């Protein structure tokens, strides 16, 4: 077993474990923290792929921005209590079954589609440095890129509008 594979295994274990814990932990705050861990481990995966830029962005966006949002929300609502009632047993069982079902189906799909034969491509061409990515992003994907900014703007306005207290409430 090579080092890389070992790292991969450890990372994967962390990823899966924290993901599970996110779901099973009763306290939302803990969930959020597990989720951060999960995201960080995913960033680790990115690093394994040598996609440093992506990894950084991932940490900034997910672990930084998104998780902060989550935490703030949780704190805002003062949900840090274990007062959540479990779903009925049948539902939980069904959820478990669907979990297995989804996994099996998706795996079957991937196995079914295309068997991988022979060694992987290794062209040696630089394809994932910041420079290349920047070129792709701002040449080929110029328009979607700009739209992404619009999307974020709209989302921002939407979020502000939604979370603003309604005036009627005061009356």
């Amino acid at each position, binding site marked *: 077993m090579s080092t890389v594979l070992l790292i991969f295994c450890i990372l994967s274990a962390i*990823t899966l474990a924290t993901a*599970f814990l*996110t779901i099973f932990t009763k306290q939302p705050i803990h969930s959020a923290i597990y989720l951060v861990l999960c995201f960080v481990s995913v960033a680790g*995966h990115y690093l394994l792929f040598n996609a440093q830029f992506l990894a950084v962005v991932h940490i900034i966006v997910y672990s930084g921005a998104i998780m902060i949002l*989550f935490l703030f929300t949780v704190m805002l609502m003062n*949900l840090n209590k274990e007062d959540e009632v479990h779903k009925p047993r049948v539902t939980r069982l*069904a959820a478990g079954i669907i979990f297995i079902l989804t996994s099996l189906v998706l795996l079957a799909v991937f196995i079914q589609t295309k068997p991988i034969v022979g060694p992987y*491509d290794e062209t040696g061409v630089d394809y994932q440095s910041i420079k290349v990515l920047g070129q792709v992003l701002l040449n080929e994907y110029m328009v979607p890129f700009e739209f992404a900014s619009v999307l974020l703007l709209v*989302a921002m306005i939407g979020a502000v509008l939604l979370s603003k207290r309604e005036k009627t409430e005061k009356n």
Partner: protein
Amino acid sequence: MGNILNEIGIENYIFLSVILFSIGVFGVLYRRNAIIVFMSIEIMLNAVNLLFVAFSTYHQDAQGQVFVFFSMAVAAAEVAVGLAIVVSIFRNLGSIDLDNLKNLKG
């Protein structure tokens, strides 16, 4: 640097992503807390992102990574709006228990 997939194998990434994704699905179905459900959705998105990157490496093509950028942007927007909705639901109903939201009933 050599192709990492030669050492790990794309299959492993596929397995990982599938299981991660399924965990997300499981979480959505399992929990009643809207925020946790949101988190599960984020997990699913990450699973997909991960696979994107894996295949990007597999094909030695940057497009997959570019896509991940976009998906992150969308995820950020989605979380912002979604959490705003959750907040306003909480304000109106005093709870974010999904099973209590029955206003969709026709």
